[in-house]
């Protein structure tokens, strides 16, 4: 818009200028013409006056005689006077001899009479005209204007003409001056005009520059926005080649050099089929005008791809093409969904595992049957099949069928690991089949190499790690509530003679037996909790040994009381970090628990590497409680002091903590220990810590218990 307006202004300016110049020229011309006319009239007037004062008779006489006489001299003086007074160049009278020859009769310049002159053709024309028209005329010769007045005799003939020549040289000078003025004036106008243009132009240039700068800034802002959006934006037209304005995320996802790259090639570098399909679809999209149909076509384009280890989601949108307003370009939006997808996959895997576990728990018996079927197949059927006399073809078919069936059945339990391995097995057998060298021994070796049983173990690992090793037990298991067994024991004791009863009861009790270790299974957790609460740094408690089966009911009360021992170790035994380091010990304390069966005794050791029992403190407390007197105490060995910790009320802590210090705990332990007929031996040392060594009889369970 601005452009047109200024152009119009400029054109108008030019036109005005031209007009002014034109006016000037016209003015000069009219002045020039008028001036000449005026001079012509003047000259004619002078000629007329002179002509009127000429005596025609005398003139004719002079014409005939050509003798200068008084009249001639009188007239000459008169002519000279006229010339001097009017300031004209010449005043004279001429007489035409022939069309191209004249003679001067009177002449203000010369004093001779009858001087002739040859006329050129154009001059002749003019002179003839002067002589033959009876009116006055004036003509322009170069720098002279001549005004003629005819001399007419009595008969009306033109016998001569008076001519007055006026020099108009000065007119030309005047003209030149005036033209010069115009030129100057025009030049000034041009300069002014040029300045005006320059000013308006530079104004416009400045304005345009500002607009450009603003535009650039806007573009930069938008670009920034896109680049930081975390998504890749790119676009292409019907040529499918990527336009150079794309956001940097595209480079991260697709590669560095994207200018003008072909989009299908870029997203499917290795898959010719997909490339061709995408090409086909895109071309159709660009040709389609109906936006509804176009959206349907767009739906065929991939909504996600795997590229350069990224999982990229893709969206498509048609937008106006920046180059031509009629056509459209396709904008592609890339989103990096790699992490999200990895997470989803992980979740999916966990979900599948969960399903598998649930199925295993719900249909445990069926699963166990399946497992033992498979094991039988591996251990017995396969070797048999291989060595039997059946034709190889039948054998292979059999094996394949069985494996296929197993695959399906394990599939029902969502055991995808098994399914996959068995599928792989099927493939191997298939390819073995096609070989020419297939023999039954070959088959046998193949099956051996494929290690069918190992496949199962791998497959069961997840189940076992989640549900415990005891979940998959090879023998058939019947579940009986413990109470029922106890009932049974009681009934046997009541109804059956004691000898037999004892045997039976023993057997039944053994059904209830579990590993001794189980009784202490909770302690590692407990000790960790204690350590945390007391802000002590410990290695995790490990339970060593204790796999031997026992009547857990018998030892339960005792093992439960051991909390006080552990608490003692963590609270009083293990020092805090600084003290340990000062003592040159490891920063982390250690509590151990070892269980061993030696002949008919259970050895249970609980030990810490702390600072040992506070013997002085014990002595002090004993004194306070009045258990012994000072003298009695003095006689006691360290060895004898130690058991005193079990005395009721004894605690080397002045204030009871939540955990220990009431002086009750140890006493309870002692009590329980005595109930099951056990013994305790304590070894303590400020450098190596404290050891509680329990000895528990294993017993045959013939005694009843409370």
């Amino acid at each position, binding site marked *: 818009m601005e452009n047109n307006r200024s152009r119009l202004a400029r054109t108008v300016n030019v036109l005005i200028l031209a007009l002014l110049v034109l006016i000037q020229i016209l003015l000069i011309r009219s002045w020039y013409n008028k001036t000449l006319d005026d001079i012509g009239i003047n000259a004619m007037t002078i000629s007329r006056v002179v002509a009127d004062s000429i005596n025609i008779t005398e003139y004719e006489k002079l014409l005939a005689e050509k003798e200068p006489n008084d009249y001639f001299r009188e007239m000459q003086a008169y002519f000279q006077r006229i010339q001097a007074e009017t300031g004209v160049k010449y005043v004279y009278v001429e007489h035409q001899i022939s069309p191209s020859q004249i003679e001067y009769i009177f002449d203000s310049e010369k004093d001779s009479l009858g001087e002739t002159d040859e006329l050129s053709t154009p001059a002749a024309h003019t002179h003839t005209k002067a002589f033959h028209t009876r009116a006055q005329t004036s003509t322009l010769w170069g720098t002279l204007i001549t005004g003629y007045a005819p001399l007419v005799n009595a008969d009306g003939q033109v016998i001569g003409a008076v001519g007055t020549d006026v020099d108009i040289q000065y007119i030309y000078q005047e003209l030149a001056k005036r033209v010069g003025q115009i030129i100057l004036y025009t030049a000034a106008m041009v300069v002014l005009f040029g300045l005006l243009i320059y000013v308006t132009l530079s104004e416009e240039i400045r304005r345009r520059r500002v607009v450009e700068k603003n535009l650039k800034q806007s573009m930069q802002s938008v670009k920034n926005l896109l680049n930081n959006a975390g998504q890749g934006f790119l676009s292409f037209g019907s040529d499918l080649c990527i336009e150079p304005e794309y956001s940097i995320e595209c480079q991260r996802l697709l590669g560095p050099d994207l200018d003008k790259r072909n989009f299908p090639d870029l997203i499917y570098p290795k898959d010719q089929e997909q490339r061709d*399909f995408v090409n*086909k*679809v895109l071309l*159709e999209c660009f040709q389609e005008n109906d936006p509804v*149909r176009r959206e*349907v*076509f767009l739906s*065929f384009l991939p909504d996600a791809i795997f590229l350069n280890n990224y999982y990229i989601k893709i969206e498509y949108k048609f937008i106006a093409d920046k180059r031509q307003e009629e056509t459209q370009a396709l904008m592609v939006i890339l989103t990096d969904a790699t992490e999200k997808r990895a997470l989803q996959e992980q979740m999916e895997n966990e979900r599948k595992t969960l399903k598998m576990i649930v199925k295993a728990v719900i249909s445990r018996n069926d699963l166990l049957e399946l497992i033992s079927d498979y094991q039988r197949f591996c251990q017995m059927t396969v070797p048999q099949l291989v060595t039997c006399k059946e034709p190889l073809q039948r054998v292979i078919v059999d094996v394949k069928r069985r494996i296929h069936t197993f695959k399906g059945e394990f599939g029902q339990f969502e055991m995808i690991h098994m399914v996959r391995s068995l599928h792989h097995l099927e493939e191997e057998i298939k390819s073995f089949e096609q070989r020419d060298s297939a023999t039954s021994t070959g088959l046998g070796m193949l099956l051996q190499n494929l290690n069918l049983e190992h496949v199962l173990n791998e497959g069961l690992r997840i189940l076992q790690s989640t549900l415990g090793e005891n979940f998959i037990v090879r023998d058939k298991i019947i579940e009986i509530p413990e109470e029922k067994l106890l009932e049974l024991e009681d009934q046997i004791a009541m109804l059956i003679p004691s000898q037999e009863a004892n045997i039976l009861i023993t057997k039944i009790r053994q059904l209830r037996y579990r590993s001794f270790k189980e009784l202490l299974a909770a302690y590692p957790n407990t000790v960790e909790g204690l350590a945390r609460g007391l802000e002590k740094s410990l290695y995790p408690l490990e339970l060593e040994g204790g796999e031997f089966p026992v009547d857990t009911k018998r030892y339960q009360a005792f093992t439960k009381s051991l909390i006080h021992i552990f608490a003692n170790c963590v609270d009083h035994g293990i020092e805090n970090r600084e003290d340990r380091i000062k003592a040159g010990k490891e920063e982390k304390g250690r509590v151990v628990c070892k269980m061993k069966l030696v002949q008919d005794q259970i050895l249970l050791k609980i030990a810490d590497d702390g600072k040992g029992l506070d013997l002085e403190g014990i002595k002090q407390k004993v004194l306070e409680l009045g258990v012994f007197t000072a003298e009695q105490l003095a006689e006691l060995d360290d060895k004898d002091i130690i058991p005193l910790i079990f005395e009721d009320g004894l605690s080397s802590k002045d204030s009871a903590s939540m955990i220990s210090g009431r002086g009750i705990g140890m006493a309870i332990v002692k009590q329980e220990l005595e109930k099951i007929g056990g013994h305790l031996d304590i070894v303590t040392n400020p450098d190596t810590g404290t050891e509680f060594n329990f000895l528990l009889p294993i017993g045959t369970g013939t005694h009843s218990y409370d």
Partner: protein
Amino acid sequence: MARVLIVDDSAIMRRNLAAIMGRGGHEVIGEALNGMQALAEYGNLHPDIVTMDITMPLSDGIEALGKLLGRYPDARVVMISAINQKDRVFEAIKLGAKNYIIKPFEEDKVINIINQVLGFK
């Protein structure tokens, strides 16, 4: 409330689809088992919309589509396809089918596409 013609060789699929249509507020006015039947039924019933399975044994879905559109160019056909048939579905759309649905069905999606093709909101 549109009148639907279902073209599919599987009785189970037809029943499935019919149930979905019913719940979506449309009426199934006819069923066809192959392209031949489809052509005939269309002529008789002039449904508002046709669903057509892309893989049918006797007459292939694309062929049937071509014949149907040839005879009735204003027919609104939605293709039903399994998940890895992109190429064929694309051909069908190019030929003149309006849209497509991928098995297994998501009921909402099916109704949305049907309504969109019919021009309902």
